[in-house]
């Protein structure tokens, strides 16, 4: 009984944590170049709806993921144009992007409400999936779950082990110095935002293709904003984001398990858990984050005129 409960919680945490991890990585890449993107919620919605509709029409969920990633990347270019080229306020631009994503996804998905799909199925790994307990806990997921941690490592490698990543982080710390050192801050920021959009699109696709297997308006329910809090929690580090996403996935999973088992607490109060936990975590980690914040976060490179 206890063991099966624990297995459900852990496998649920991995499942629910996956879109959060992709979303947190997305926001991390952007913020490392000095750009806060509150539009992540909108990008995820676009990813979710494009992934879903593509899957309904082609019957191939992998094509859905691909389309979602591309749509997320392109959609984020609108944000890039506003904050990089037009130097608009990042927070207001992000919220405008969120609004646009909410409306656009509702329009695209309107005629697909109620459609059912097979979605991304569990990929069983021969031998490993047959191990008793452990097999169910770690080797019974869809492809996006398996690829989540490798993607986090890839993002870490790109940002901390390549020249490109060094330039990216330099722009996030001090764009003028990076410019003086021969980097092109605006080009690097556009590249970072495109990658961030791809990751955000995948996060949305996992929600609609693997978790819900359906489309509903505003189905992200604030996960984009939770991811913004998770970036602070993970101190802008892609590998620490894995722990953060698992923690929050665990909170969502715990809440779902308690509802499924009929624990006599209102589901509405349980649903508050991830949001309240985000606030608590932000408060506890506030002392530690000062040194980790990218230096130019929220400001925009004004050129050298």
């Amino acid at each position, binding site marked *: 009984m206890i063991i099966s409960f624990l297995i459900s919680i852990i496998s649920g945490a991995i499942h629910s944590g996956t879109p959060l991890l992709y979303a947190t990585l997305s926001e991390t890449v952007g913020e490392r170049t000095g750009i806060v993107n*509150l539009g992540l919620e909108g990008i995820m919605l676009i990813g979710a709806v494009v992934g879903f509709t593509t899957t309904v029409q082609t019957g191939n969920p992998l094509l859905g993921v691909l389309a979602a990633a591309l749509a997320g990347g392109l959609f984020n270019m*609108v944000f890039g*144009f*506003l904050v990089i080229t*037009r*130097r*608009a*306020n990042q*927070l*207001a*631009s992000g*919220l*405008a*992007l969120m*609004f*646009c994503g*909410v*409306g*656009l996804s*509702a*329009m695209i998905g*309107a005629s697909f409400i109620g459609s059912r799909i097979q979605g991304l199925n569990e990929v069983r790994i021969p031998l490993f999936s047959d191990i008793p307990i452990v097999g169910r806990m770690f080797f019974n997921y869809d492809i996006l779950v398996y690829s989540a941690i490798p993607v986090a490592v890839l993002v870490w490698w790109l940002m901390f082990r390549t020249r490109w990543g060094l330039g990216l982080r330099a722009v996030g710390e001090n764009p003028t110095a990076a410019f003086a050192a021969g980097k092109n801050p605006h080009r690097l920021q556009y590249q970072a935002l495109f990658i961030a959009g791809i990751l955000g699109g995948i996060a949305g696709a996992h929600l609609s293709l693997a978790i819900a297997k359906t489309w509903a*308006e*505003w189905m992200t*329910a*604030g996960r984009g*904003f*939770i991811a*913004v*809090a998770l970036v*602070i929690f993970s101190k802008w580090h892609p590998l620490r984001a894995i722990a953060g996403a698992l923690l929050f996935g665990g909170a969502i999973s715990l809440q779902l398990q308690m509802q499924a088992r009929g624990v006599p607490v*209102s589901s*509405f*109060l349980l*649903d*508050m858990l991830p*949001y*309240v936990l*985000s*606030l608590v975590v*932000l*408060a506890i980690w*506030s002392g530690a984050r000062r040194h980790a914040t990218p230096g130019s976060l929220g*400001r925009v490179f004004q050129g050298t005129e």
Partner: protein
Amino acid sequence: MNKAFLQIGFHHQWVASAIRFVGLFVLALVFFALILLVFGKNPLRAYADIFSATLGSAYGFSEVAVKMIPLILTALAVALPSRIWLINVGGEGQLFIGALFATWGAVNFTNLPVWLLLPWIGILGFIGGGLWGAISGYLRVRGWASETISTLLMNYVAILLVNFFVFGPWKDPESANYPQSAPFPDAAILPSFFGTRIHLGIVLAIVGLILFHFVLSRTRWGLEMRAIGVNQEAARRNGISTNRYIILLMLIGGGAAGVAGMGEVSAIHGQLRPSLSPGLGYTGFLISWMAGGHPIGIVAAAFLLSVITAGGDILQMTHRIPAAGVHILMALILFVVLARPAGKKGGK
């Protein structure tokens, strides 16, 4: 002669900024028309229907005014804290908590006379929204969380809290199975005017605007807020407590949104429902941003977005466009405002 010249100059500047704004608005309309075309809808018919349903009749016009009431208040909830660079995106949650508090007052103090009950639920609405906003202010002052992210997260908590009450302890046993509170007693319903749905909240919204303008331009508090807005460090060295202003402005701003919630639940719905607000708090944020926090600008932008919001209902009924579709138009307007050539831009 010099004076006359100045007047012409002033006049010209005002006209120029009005023309610029209309130009931006038309640009957003063109973009939205293109999007409608992509989805196979006829944009000209859509715009014509929106126009005739909102501004084409006295009734339509009064409904636009009805929608402006909560929007002006939620815009003030954003505009006031924005004076010292606080970004309050929590209007939605503050509105819900204000409505929650007002409902508690209306349903539990049914034997109060109307002249006492109405101010009582108004104050409760203000306190509810104000406390919700002040929590974010406190988190900010302690350095625990930026008000931007905390207000966003608390929107979800607030809406879930209202759901908890109307699905649970406050559910009206007499309403078949609908999640809603007991209906407000007659004494707790804000009176309406001229046979329309325009209610007493419009007076509160106008008083709010006037107070906002007066406090900012004519009082020491307005001066101190300007000082904080220009240079926080210098203000602090002159003995102005920034922290006190942060909590106070989040409290008053949240209170304004809470009063909006009180007005909606009392005058429009008559009982607390989860469908209380179609994003009024978020729309208020857009309005404040478009208006640059200027009182007249807030009225103009609130009018514009009321027409669009009301238009959203029309599009849903006659063109089968989801109600959320007009969010695109709102976003496009903000996009063009944000992307306009630098120079006239306020702030950083």
